Structures are given as C-alpha cells and as structure tokens.
C-alpha cells in the first residue's frame, strides 16, 4: 500500500466518479462501491495513487465508478494485469475487483497463481452465485440444483469453494464480507489493503434480478465468532466447516510479499553487449 498523504484529508466523495452505475436497482454492488470509497477515505490514500483493476461482468464495471486510475480489461485476466502493474509500480495501491464468473471460472487459473505469487494487492470478488450480465447462467458458486435456462434442473455440479482454494494456494489474508454491511466491509477492506501480500476478500453481493432468493442473505449472515487466525491449519478447518455466512477476517498469514527490486539503474547499455563480443 502506498504512503498516506498527510498533506490533505480525503472525503469519501473524492473517490467517487460522476459516472452513473448501470447496475440494477437493489444490486449489492452499489454497497461494495460505497465500501471501496469509504475504505480509501479511511486510509487517506490520494485517488491517483490507487489503481482499481477488473475483468468483465457486472462487478467489473466498478473501476469507472471510482475516481481512481482504473482498468476494465478482458474477461478473467484482471489478476495478471494487476500483477504486471504492481510489480513495476510498487508505489501504487492496487485493488482488483471481480465476480464469481470472472474470477472463479474463466479466471480460475490466475486466482491460484496470484495467491501463490503473493504480490501485495487486494482481490475483491463480488460473489452472487450467478452470471448477471449475461442474464442468469450458473457460475462456479451456483448451487447444483439451481434451475436456469442453460442448465435445466440445475448443473448437478459441486460448487467451487473460493476461500479454501485461496488458503491452499497461499493467499496471505482471507476474509468474507456481506455487501449489505458497507461499514463492516469497509473496515475489512482497510485491513486487507494494509496487510502485506495478496489479500482475498470475498463479498457476498446479492443479484436481486436473477437470484431474488439472495435477498434472504441479510438474515443468514453473522459475524465470525472468533478472531482471525494466523494458523493455516486452523483456518482450513474453520473455512471448510463454516456455513458460508461467517463474516469477518478469517485468516492473516505472514508470508513475505513477492516484490522484485525494480527502478531505473543507470548503466551504460553497452555493458550488456559484453555477452556477445568476439
């Protein structure tokens, strides 16, 4: 994370752009946007020092709704793009925004390797267990019996468990949030951004259009009963066995972030030719 600008106090509004979101009324992602801007203001980060990187899907529209630098790239590749940015610009605060289709399906391989690589960035996945932008197809987190036009009678396929995968792959910070609790979510995002290395924050963010049943999530979520563990073994048991609505920071690792030394070194480039001279 970049250094705090002490010269200036930032307000939440400083991080919000004048572009009107195209999300459906009632979409959980509105609250995620609110949590983003609240967290950035709490951290006091200059907006130009933050980069919000995304792929494709409803959630991935979020960069343009912030007043930060943004990249709305191709489907599923946001983590790779963000790694290239952060490794060469370690001074920036890099936040990656994704959804359950973008992040866990088409981008699944990059998720594994981003956790492994442990570059200092925060990965936020707005999980609504459905493809919203393409109008209601099953995602990797959709329940096996959930009926859709593309999967009549349900997929019959076991859902993906992103938190377990993140832990096994080496993520250094793991949390689960609920979009309907923007203050709590902002507080977790502040901790995620401050934590060194790759921080993974799964936000349950209901799709009221294609999953109206998810309106019930607000009654199902509950704060995690115990504080975050630093023990991956304990974290694994906890994440494997909870009800999926356990909200809060679940794991804080202590791996050293991946950051090679970069920055201009002024050597005469003819030095490099010596490899070839006869």
């Amino acid at each position, binding site marked *: 994370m970049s250094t705090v600008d002490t010269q200036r106090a930032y307000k939440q509004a400083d991080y919000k752009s004048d572009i009107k979101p195209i999300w459906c009324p009632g979409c959980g992602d509105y609250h995620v946007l609110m949590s983003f801007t609240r967290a950035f203001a709490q951290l006091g980060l200059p907006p*130009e020092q933050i980069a919000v990187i995304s792929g494709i899907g409803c959630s991935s529209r979020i960069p343009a709704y912030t007043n930060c630098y943004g990249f709305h790239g191709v489907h*599923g590749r946001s983590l790779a793009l963000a790694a290239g940015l952060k*490794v060469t610009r370690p001074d920036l605060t890099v936040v990656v925004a994704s959804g359950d289709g973008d992040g866990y399906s088409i981008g699944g391989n990059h998720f594994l390797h981003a956790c492994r690589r442990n570059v200092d960035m925060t990965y936020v996945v707005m999980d609504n267990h459905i493809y919203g932008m393409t109008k209601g197809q099953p995602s990797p987190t959709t329940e096996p019996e959930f009926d859709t036009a593309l999967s009549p009678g349900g997929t019959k396929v076991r859902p993906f468990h992103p938190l377990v995968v993140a832990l096994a792959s080496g993520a250094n910070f793991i949390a689960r949030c609920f979009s309907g609790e923007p203050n709590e979510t902002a507080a977790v995002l502040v901790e995620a951004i401050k934590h060194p290395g790759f921080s993974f924050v799964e936000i349950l963010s209901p799709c009221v259009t294609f999953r109206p049943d998810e309106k019930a999530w607000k009654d199902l979520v509950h704060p995690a009963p115990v504080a975050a563990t630093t023990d991956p073994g304990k974290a694994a048991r906890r994440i494997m066995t909870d009800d999926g609505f356990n909200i809060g920071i679940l794991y804080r690792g202590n791996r050293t972030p991946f950051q090679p030394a970069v920055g201009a070194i002024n050597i005469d480039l003819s030095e490099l030719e010596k490899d070839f001279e006869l």
Partner: protein
Amino acid sequence: MAASPSISIAIVGSGGAGALTTGNSLLEAACAAGWYGLLTRTLGPQIRGGEAAALLRLAVNPVEGLPDQFDLLIGIDWLNAHRFGSEIKAGPGTLVISDPRGGDQPPMVTQSGARVFEIPMKEMAKTIPDGRPNMIALGIAGRLLDLTIEQVFAPIEKLLADKGPAAIEASHAGIKIGFGAAAGADFGTPLASPNPSSARRWLLSGNEATALGAIRGGVRFAAAYPITPATEVLEWLAPSLAKVGGVLLQAEDELAAINMIIGSSFGGTPALTATSGPGLSLMIEALGLATSAEIPVVVVDVMRGGPSTGIPTKSEQADLNIAVYGLHGDAPHLVLAPQSVGDCMFTTQWATYLAETLQSPAIVLSDQFMGQTRAAIERPADVAFIGARTVATDIAGAYERYALAANGVSPMAIPGTRGGQYTADGLTHSQRGIPTSGAADHLAQLDKRRDKLDHFNYGDHWAAIEGAGELAVLTWGSLTSAAREAIARATKDGIDVRLVAPRLLLPTQPERLAKAFYGVKRILVIEQTHGGQFHRYLRAHYDLPAPVRVFNRPGPLPITAGEIYRAITEWR
C-alpha cells in the same frame, strides 16, 4: 589449391552425443580466429535419445544462410542420422568422417558419392578417462580447418571452466587425438584466410539479439510462458533486465503473460513478451484490448511450424495471417519482421519505439531459423529509437485520455499523475474514456486508432530495397538473407535482380512499394508457407504491377540461397 570463401560443416549425432557442443565450440574457435560464420541446430522432437545436428557455415565475409550441400559431414554416430536425410545434403565433393562402430551410414552418405574417411572416434575416446567422442570430432574439424590446437582448446576451456581441471584435461586429450587422426584426411578446397579487420564483432543468436533490442528500445518489464523456440529471448532477458532495474515474470500461461505486460505498460513501464504460434493464439484477445485501450506492448512471435503444436523446432512463416488478421473487430496494430540475426536487434528496438510512440501493440514476427541461429556479425550501428511515450503531465481541468489529437496520439496519463485518473477500457469509449455504444464515438475512436498508425512516417526502415533489376524478388523475414545471397550470385552472372523485403508488414505502405517497383517487369515472391500467405497478403493490400511467380514451401526444410538462385535464373 584455390581457397573457398565459405565452407559448410554438418556434425551429426544421436541425442546427448554432444554434436551441438562440438559445433558451437568449432564456431567460437573459427570466429575467434577471424572468420564469420553461423550455426543452426536441428533437433528431433525429443530432448535426448533423438537426434541432433549442428549445421555450420564458416566464411570470410558475414553469412546468414545455409548451403545447398555440405563440404564436411562428421558422424559422431549414425544412429538416427537417416532422419536428417532431406536436410543434410552431401555430394561427390563432400568429405565424410565416419566412425566404423557408429552404426550404418545413412543413405545421404552412401548414395552421395562422397569420400568417406573412417576414424574410430568411439574407440579413441575410450583410451582417455572420461573421454568423449564429440571432443575427438572437434579435434578432427579443427585440424581440417587448419586451426591451431590452442584455438580449438579455448572455447572448451571457457565452457568447462566450472567443471574443473579433470574435465578440461579429458577434452584436451580428445581434441589432441582428433587432431592427429585427421592428418590423413583430404578436405579438398580449404577455407580462405580471414580478412584482417578491426571491426567489432558479435557472436549471438537472433533470440539474444531480439532481447538486446528490446532493452535498447526501453523495455524494462517482460512476462512470458516458456515455449520453443522463443525461450532464449526470455532466458537472456531475465538476468539482463535485472541489471537495468527491470524484471521478468514467468507467467502461469500466455493469457497471463500478455495481460501482465499490459498492466506494466499501463503503469508507464515499457513491456514485452516473447512466444511462438500457440502462445500468440492465446494472446490475441488481449492484443485487441491493448489496441482499444491504446496501451503500447511488444509481442515477439518466434514462428515455428504450425498449425497447432506443429513442428516446434523448425522454422516456418505461417503466422503471418494470425499476426495481420487475427484480432476480432477492426483493430489496427503494428506488425514487423526482422530479416537476419543482427536485424532482430534493430527491428525489436524499432518495434518498441513505434509501440511506445504510437500507443499501439506491436507484433514482431521472428522465426526459429534466425531466432536459434548463432551467427558472427559485425556489431550493428547504434540507432536512436528509444521508446518515447507522449504522457500527460500538469493536468488542469477535465482530462480526456482519448482526445482526438491531430496525429491521433493523445497524451497518456500514468497512474500517480494527479488529475489524470481514467479507466482504460476494452469497451467502446468516448474521448474521456467513458463506455458508450454511440455510433459517433465508435467511429471517432476507430478513425483515431487507424489514422495514428497510417499517418505516421515510418521512413526508409520499412523495407530493405536493394538493386535495380527488372526482376524483383519480394520476400520477408529470415528469407531475406537467403534471397540477398542468391541475388549476389545472379549479379555475378550478369543478371540484375532487385530485392524488396518489407520489415514493416502493418500498417501497409502501398505508395512506398509502388515506388520500389518502378521499372519492375517480373515479381518473384518467395515465402515459407504452405498456403501462400504472404502472396495473398500482398494481393490484398498492394498493387503488383507485373507478372508474378510464387515460390512457397512450408517448413521444416529451409529455403536456401541456391533454390532462390535457380528460381531467378529459370525465369528469363
């Protein structure tokens, strides 16, 4: 006896026999002695247990192509040598060094009429502790070239420096035995003495030259996934980028590699990846993103035989279509092709400069032949092409990332610049960068991205244009060197031939080509594809104002100068 300006040597062995070590050491010794030369390696698909051959050509002057026939063929063993039958041509003038215990001589030897001189390399090697037949072969070749034994020792001492004195002693002993054993062999026409010269010379591969050109052009970040035959670009870049404050990341796949370099470039650090056809296929979607979001990146494709996995260790020029036409939508971008080992450096440096200047992705189409050929070249002249991106600084008021600048290149705000915040996007966008599906914005930005490339003055580097004959040889890529050699031979016969070889394939330069064709009566197109991709590309974009003949052949066999010479002389 008259001396020859160039001789060719093939060293053959089964996988692991060390034919390539022998070849590379011989090349280094000969180049250190003042000759020019090149080595291409030819391998079967297996890493070990297959077959390997080092194909060398040594010459008084710089040389970049293979011969039609080899003067010296050394078989360390012949176990799988029949697989090279179509690649290594011998004839009555060829001297073959054969081990009587090295297996049956292949038809390329027995049917050639070549003179065979038997030396029991395997048996000789057994007389030395840890002796290896390939060092005997090195001694034989060194002796036949009239190198001194110290000249032959030198590259081996360098190679084995880490292995200790015993390994070096074993090699010395082997080389000495080979030296003695070759004494009775009649090599025929010897290689002419090297010209005394003070020119600075380099010995490197095209892939290494590509990597050096990238750093010279300003590249400070690379991300890539290993792939034959591009990996040497990456293996040279990894330590070299670190020396200049840059870094190379090994990506989880090519999809990640291309997106990583887009991220780096978005942050202001010029970036490159290197791959081959299968990897380029995976990168195409993100290349469209870089086109739309106007992010400069350089993608080097070291072409190999295709489609699909194809022939990973052999050269072809059949990625032209995907490089030119592969992107969906109307997506103007840069495509360039180096023409020789040394030109890999220039063209990659130029590509980096153009990508940065024009805020566009650039594809550099190298190929396995020049990429993996090691050649002694004169040090290329320094050129001033260093990536110079137009960036937005001191931003006051509303910033428009995609403003319709007169030359189409709008100043790019780099993250960290106050007031320049924007979201780079693959969605059609307005001048401010806001997504839109409006017809006017779509058209305006399509025009902008086309015009910035079309209106740029690329200068004379766009093509190699040489000579003024009525017959023009129109070719590209590594075939340019073979064509140049063929034309030189035709010129000696009194036939004037013009060479036209575009280095810039996109955007096309129809006015410049028309000028290059002034007075041309016949056009001979030479390309290494099965489907005539270059010819079709020419027909689509250029006026070919004279009768055209096309000589196209797919890999894996290289198109030689001799074949081009015959194509020239047969069309009178």
